[in-house]
């Protein structure tokens, strides 16, 4: 009797699962692998309706995590959003499909001013998506005497309430900039110096963290965080006590690009998605929502002046000169991995 009841429960559960499955079958599916909170979700809904498809999104928190997942047999994504240096690594590995320009007519809007940030200015296998920079997000009321310097991480009075990104190129890069070096250096002495700086900072931070700092800042769990400009500004929308500064020593700039992997299941839909995100209205709406700049010339005039004049979105020339784009260093990437390991292991 009881067994029969248990079996009927299993039957009901199975029926529920199957019904839930059926209602969504039939439509083509676009698998997207993106940074978290890096697209206005409503726009995805518009795309789904326009193309009669379903978009399934998975998220990652650093280029390295994304690459590892895709390499580990996590193929089957149609569109991915790596930063330029990762685009060149993936291209070098033969993982990317060439962009069919005829299917992306909106390429004509790409701002030539920003193609210098990418490794693929001709959009041969990648299309620029957003321009971002990293800096320091903080709580104005709790850190009133904030300085626009990476040296903030030496402030022991904030110990246990700060975070650095869990991203070797960004965090070692911040220390290199702090010391006045290039964040693409391969000089062993400079790297060793940067390592010691991060190890010193590590004593003051709560965590190496590239995602949770947003909730942490918003809820005052963390008082000062190393983060990306748009991410911090999204938090500002919710908590106006949050501020963002770009350290005067300079920082990293990135062009995050859209690519289609060779094993994409739905390349046509992928091209359509890329083209859609460069529709001027869509690009403007997306920028206004996620606070990253989409390098799309036709979208600028649809944006509020407030966004275009924001010095953390469009950097002033003087600061821009001190900033750098993270480059792929080929075999020498190893050096960063090694330094990162030493940092993580240090007591």
């Amino acid at each position: 009797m009881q067994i029969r009841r248990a079996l009927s429960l299993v039957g009901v559960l199975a029926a529920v699962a199957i019904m839930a499955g059926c209602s969504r079958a039939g439509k083509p599916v676009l698998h997207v692998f993106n940074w978290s909170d890096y697209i206005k979700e409503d726009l995805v809904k518009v795309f789904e309706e326009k193309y009669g498809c379903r978009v399934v999104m998975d998220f990652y928190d650093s280029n390295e995590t994304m690459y590892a997942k895709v390499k580990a047999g996590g193929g089957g994504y149609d569109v991915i959003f790596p930063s330029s240096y990762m685009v060149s690594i993936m291209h070098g590995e033969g993982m990317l499909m060439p962009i069919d320009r005829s299917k992306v007519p909106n390429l004509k809007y790409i701002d030539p001013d920003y193609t210098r940030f990418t490794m693929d200015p001709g959009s041969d296998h990648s299309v620029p998506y957003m321009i971002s920079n990293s800096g320091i997000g903080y709580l104005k009321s709790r850190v009133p005497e904030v300085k626009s310097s990476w040296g903030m991480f030496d402030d022991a009075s904030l110990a246990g309430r700060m975070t650095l990104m869990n991203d070797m190129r960004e965090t070692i890069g911040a220390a290199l900039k702090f010391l006045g070096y290039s964040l693409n250096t391969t000089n062993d002495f400079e790297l060793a110096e940067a390592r010691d700086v991060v190890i010193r900072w590590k004593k003051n931070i709560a965590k190496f963290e590239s995602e949770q700092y947003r909730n942490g800042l918003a809820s005052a769990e963390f008082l000062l965080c190393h983060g990306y400009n748009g991410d911090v500004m999204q938090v500002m929308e919710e908590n106006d006590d949050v501020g963002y500064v770009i350290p005067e020593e300079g920082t990293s700039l990135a062009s995050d690009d859209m690519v289609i992997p060779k094993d994409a299941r739905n390349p046509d839909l992928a091209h359509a998605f890329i083209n859609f995100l460069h529709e001027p209205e869509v690009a403007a709406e997306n920028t206004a929502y996620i606070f990253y700049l989409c390098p799309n010339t036709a979208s600028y005039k649809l944006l509020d002046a407030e966004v275009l004049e924001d010095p953390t979105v469009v950097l002033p020339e003087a600061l821009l000169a001190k900033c750098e784009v993270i480059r792929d260093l080929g075999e020498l990437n190893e050096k960063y991995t090694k330094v990162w390991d030493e940092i993580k292991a240090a007591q």
Partner: protein
Amino acid sequence: MRRGLFPRTVTALCLAFFYLPILVLVINSLNGSRYGGRWGGLSLKWYRLLFSDERIWLSARNTLIVALIATVVSMVLGTAAALALHRHRGRLQDAHYALVFTPLVVPDILMGMSLLLFFVTIAAPLGIVTITLAHITFCVSYVAMVVLARLQDFDDALIEAAHDLGAGHWTTFRRVVLPLLMPGIAAGGLLAFTLSVDDFVISFFVAGPGSSTLPIQVYSMIRHGNPPVINALSTLLLILTVAVVWSCEKLMGRNYADSSRT
């Protein structure tokens, strides 16, 4: 003076320790303020947000599909294994026992890691299928152990009697052994189902595009989600758990020790 003050104090403290965090979650799920710590008035808005989040329901569906298949397959494999272990002796069963027992003591991360390497090596595309295969692998051992424990109390004379009355192997199995074993198999299946629904680490290693299960979804929400929605989800899952535990209590009486990990 049979029960001292010390055990009673410790027990009370432990229970408070168990339930305090859970209580905080439940209260916060009804808190209108986005961040715990201040009270923003009673509100059901997080539940509304939860029900409108399609991703959670898709991952819940994935979880259910995986758990049902893993439960059914591991019930069959595990019961057969338990019968073999109980009835037969010799080198084959010694090896078989070691093989069934070892997965129980291997940390999740090792199983996830080795299965990931295996799937990558044979170039299997990661997704729902690989998650299901992985879940069956760890569920088989649990089912086998629970059924085996049940077989210990089994009166072999019943089988002898059935044979004496002229029943064949298959008839004896179907008419005598299986009905008597059913509560054990059901307990094993329930344990397998729970473990599968709750597994995060192994699934995380072998998951592929769009194959997020509920725990994977919860993990990603903890990292970059809306915290009160997780509170609401937790509360619902908690209610579900209590319902399941309560119905097991009804279904299987008091024999919980059987379903605890060996």
